[in-house]
Structure formats: C-alpha cells, structure tokens
C-alpha cells in the first residue's frame, strides 16, 4: 500500500478546520490544493524578479523571461513535448476554444463532421457548437457502453471523409472513465481528421507522453494539477499549430505591424498576445516539479488504490448508485453517485457539516446527465494528498445523510 501521508504537510490548507472538524477535501476534480513550493515559487518571482517578459534589456526582464521560458520547458517536458509546441493559455477551456476557433474555423465547412462523446465537459462541447454554428459543420456524439466507457462501435456508421475533428476527454470528470485515446486517434487518422484530447482530468493523474499517443492537440489546466489558477497549456503538433490562425491579436504575437497588415511571430508566441500569466507559468512549473519529484507512477498507483477502496466502501452503503466503471483499470478517481432520493445538493450540505468537500450538480456535463437520465450527482474525487481515512469519513457521513432523510 502506497502511503503518501507525509506529503500532506506540504499542503497548508489541509491543516484547516471546516465546521469544527478536519478538512476532508474530496473535490480535486474541480480544483486541487497547492503545495507550499508552488506558492513559494510565485512569491519568489514577485518579490525578486517581477518584470514583463520578452520586451526588455534590463536585468529583471531577462530573469523573468528566462523563468517564464524555463517553465514552458518544464511543462512541455512533462508531456514529452518540445517547448515551442506548448502554448500557455488561461486554462483547458481557453485551450479548446483556441483549437476550435484557430484551427476549426479555417478547416471546417458546411456538411463536415466533428465527433465528440456524450461524456464531455461543456468545455469540449460548447466551443464546437459555436464553431459549428458559424461553419455549418455538424456535431456528432458517440455514446456509452454499459460500463460507462465510450462506445466506439458506432464509429463505423459515422466515420467518413466528412469527419474533420474527433475531440474527446482523456478522462471524464463525472464518471472517471478513461477515454479511448488510441481507438479514436487511429480513427481520426484513418480519415485524415485531427484528434483533440481534453486532458484536463488526464494529465494531472496519469503520465502522458505525446510522442507515444499519436494525437494532434491536447489541453489541460494548471489548477487541476497543484498549480495556480489563471493558466493552462495547449499542446499541438508543430504542423497543426502552424496551420492555426492567431486567436487573439496584440503585443508579442506579431512579427511586423503596419497600419493595415500584420504578420505573426512564430509559434508558440503567435498565440500568446499581450502580457502572459507570468507568475502563473512559474507556479505551473513548480507544480510540475513537485509532481515529478513524487513520480506520476506513484501518484497513479496511489489513486488507483484509493479509488478501489472507495468503490468497495461505497458499495456497502444502501441505496447508493455509482455512475462510472467498476473496473479501476478503466477509470480515474472521480466517483459520481446518487444516494436514494436525497438530492446531491443536500448530500453536499450534510457532508460539509463534517468538513467533507464534495461537488454536487451537473459537473458541467449536461448532455451526459440527460443521457444518463439523471439531473445531478454528488462527486468525490481524489488526488495524491488524499488518504484512506478520507474515504472512511465520507462513508460515515453518507450514513448520517441517510438517517437525516429517514432512509431505511
């Protein structure tokens, strides 16, 4: 059994009490807590090196630029990528929007198809709806198997040379199901389409190497992997990034600007208009450093054990229904459930009284909720700092909820 208990002291917030008891944070799929080293890295930047990047010949500017670009290198290295193929963006949402508007708009036409899955987060649905509305392309959904994994058998009837983009989640933030990366990227390639992976839940929890998985774009957020808010990464194959139109105009993304015409800087700068999130990039780099020091294999194994334990303990709670794969090799550590007729919002309130933080709602996945014919779920999700006692506390509190609502 992997015990990462000693890491907990690196996370200041875990010392906090909520409603008079220890914080049991089971909401890492929404956002993760930050280790001291990430806060220190940003503080150090602001206290000693703060300056705008890329524009100055003075010492602070040179230091800030070097720190910013070193962070790019670190984040790129984490997914096996070249620094110049990694664009810093506001988060996974902005990353996917950049792909939709920057690549989609100028590659889609009426009648083309974009394939997504029914388990997507709104961040991987709404941008495609917006771009479809402009281009006349059609959004086609893959549905789910009995075990909540994506049903790729229906691809057969959909896949043709009208398909230009297959965009899917590497891991569902609702069911925890892993996305069929290989099947869908192969399918995309077979018809000359590109594959886009929404990796907001994948990259934080699993080692990902973009040279291993043959995809075209990948987007993720720092705040879901120990890093700060306000930053994420968009990775693309060099050729794909070069095919993309700039998504925002402004300083730093240009080569020349005349009154009426401009030319663009090389990627990745072409997509980083204006002052970038500098401190955030540095904090992101520090988060990666922390994750690498622990080891993604260790983190993944730890989460798998926790998830297996949680699935087992939760199955003992009467009236509890889990929405997601039972097989831990098919899933990550986000566990959605219902408890009898107790609304998830009520569950969250009751758990919160015991210091337990879970999400309740549609988890920004309304089409999935409609598909599963449920309006909402409660969701517990794990990260490296969670311990088995957190699961125990959850189960105790769920029994309390049953009692309060008179479930017998």
């Amino acid at each position, binding site marked *: 059994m992997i015990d990462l208990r000693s890491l907990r002291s690196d996370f200041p917030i875990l010392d906090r009490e909520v409603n008079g008891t220890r914080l049991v944070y089971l909401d890492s799929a929404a956002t993760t807590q930050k280790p001291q080293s990430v806060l220190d890295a940003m503080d150090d930047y602001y206290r000693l090196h703060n300056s705008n990047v890329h524009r100055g010949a003075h010492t602070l500017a040179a230091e800030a630029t070097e720190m910013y670009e070193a962070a790019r290198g670190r984040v790129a290295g984490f997914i096996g990528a070249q620094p110049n193929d990694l664009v810093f963006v506001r988060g996974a949402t902005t990353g996917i929007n950049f792909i939709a508007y920057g690549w989609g708009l100028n590659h889609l036409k009426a009648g083309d198809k974009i394939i997504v899955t029914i388990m997507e987060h709104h961040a991987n649905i709404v941008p495609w709806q917006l771009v479809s509305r402009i281009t006349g392309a059609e959004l086609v959904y893959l549905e789910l198997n009995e075990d909540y994994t994506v049903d790729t058998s229906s691809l057969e009837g959909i896949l043709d040379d009208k398909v230009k983009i297959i965009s899917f989640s590497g891991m569902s933030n609702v069911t925890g199901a892993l996305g069929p990366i290989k099947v869908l990227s192969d399918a995309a390639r077979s018809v000359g389409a590109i594959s886009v992976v929404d990796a907001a839940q994948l990259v934080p929890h699993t080692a990902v190497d973009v040279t291993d998985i043959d995809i075209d774009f990948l987007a993720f957020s720092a705040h879901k992997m120990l890093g700060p808010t306000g930053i994420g990464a968009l990775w693309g194959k060099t050729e794909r990034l070069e095919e993309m139109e700039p998504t925002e105009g402004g300083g730093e993304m240009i080569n020349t600007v005349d009154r009426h015409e401009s030319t663009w800087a090389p990627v990745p700068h072409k997509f980083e208009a204006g002052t970038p999130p500098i401190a955030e990039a540095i904090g992101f780099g520090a988060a990666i450093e922390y994750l690498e020091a622990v080891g993604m294999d260790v983190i993944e194994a730890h989460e798998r054990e926790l998830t297996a334990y949680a699935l087992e303990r939760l199955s003992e709670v009467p009236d509890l229904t889990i929405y997601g794969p039972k097989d831990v090799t098919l899933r990550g550590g986000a566990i959605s459930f219902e408890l009898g*007729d*107790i*609304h*998830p*919002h*009520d569950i969250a*309130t*009751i758990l919160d*009284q015991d210091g337990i933080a879970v999400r*309740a*709602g*549609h988890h920004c996945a*309304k089409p999935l*909720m409609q598909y599963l014919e449920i*309006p*909402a779920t409660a969701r517990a999700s794990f990260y490296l700092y969670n311990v088995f006692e957190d699961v125990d506390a959850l189960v105790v509190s769920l029994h309390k909820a049953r009692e*309060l*609502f*008179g479930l017998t």
Partner: protein
Amino acid sequence: MSGLDELYREVILDHYRNPRRRGTLSGDYIHAEGNNPSCGDEFFLDIEVSGDTITDAAMQGYGCSISQASGSMMMDKIVGMPMSDLRELIHNFKLMMSIEEGDSPVDEDRPGSVLGDLEALQGVRKFPVRIKCADLPWATLTDALDQVSG
C-alpha cells in the same frame, strides 16, 4: 437543534417527498420557468388568475429538498390569495431568507411568523449557499407576476 436538523425539518422532507399541486394547468394560465444553472435545479410554475385572485396553481421541476419544498409550500400559500398581496408575501419571504432588507410587520426574532408553514425554511439562513435554492420558486413567481403587471 443542530443546524442540519433545523435545515431538514420534517415538514420540509414531507413537502419534498409529497409535493403539493404537482402538474400543469390547462386552459388560461400564466406560465413561468426558473432554473439555477450552477446546480441544475428547475422550477416550472402555472398560475390561474380570476379577477384579482389566484384560483389555481401547479408546479413541476426538479431539485434539492430545499428548492422543491419551498416551491410546494409556496403553492399551498398562494392559491386563493389576492394578486395584490403577492408582492408583500414575496417580500416577507425574502426578508426571512435575508435576501431583502426593510421594514415589515415581521417579528425580528421570528421573521417567518407571518408565513405559516413556510417558516420551516428559516433554518436555511444558516446555510448561505442554500438560500438561492429556497428562493428559486419565488424568483419564478416574481417572473410570473411581472408577466401580468407588464
């Protein structure tokens, strides 16, 4: 009483599980819809008005015990009421939930005393994030009223 016991009073769970006047109206009625995008709760309201009086009402929707019980209790309260009294009822409710402030014929210590059964929702005040749950049916009712008054 603990905060949770105060929140989940028996009468609330009763209204949650046995909502009053669930369904839709037919004929001539006013329809309003409310939803709470952050949690997904929905509330659909039909009210029938004859002269100045609400003569019938029906609700549909889905949501947590607080939003649904609040709606169910609201139904009980409004049927038979003169339209002209509705704004004050809404104000008194919002006063109890600390959504609105102001003078009112309300007892400081028991701001819900004029509200009958609805007073049971007073415990929600200790759970600020749940106030918008309790308010959803009332916001929908306000919407319905605005349709009538122009």
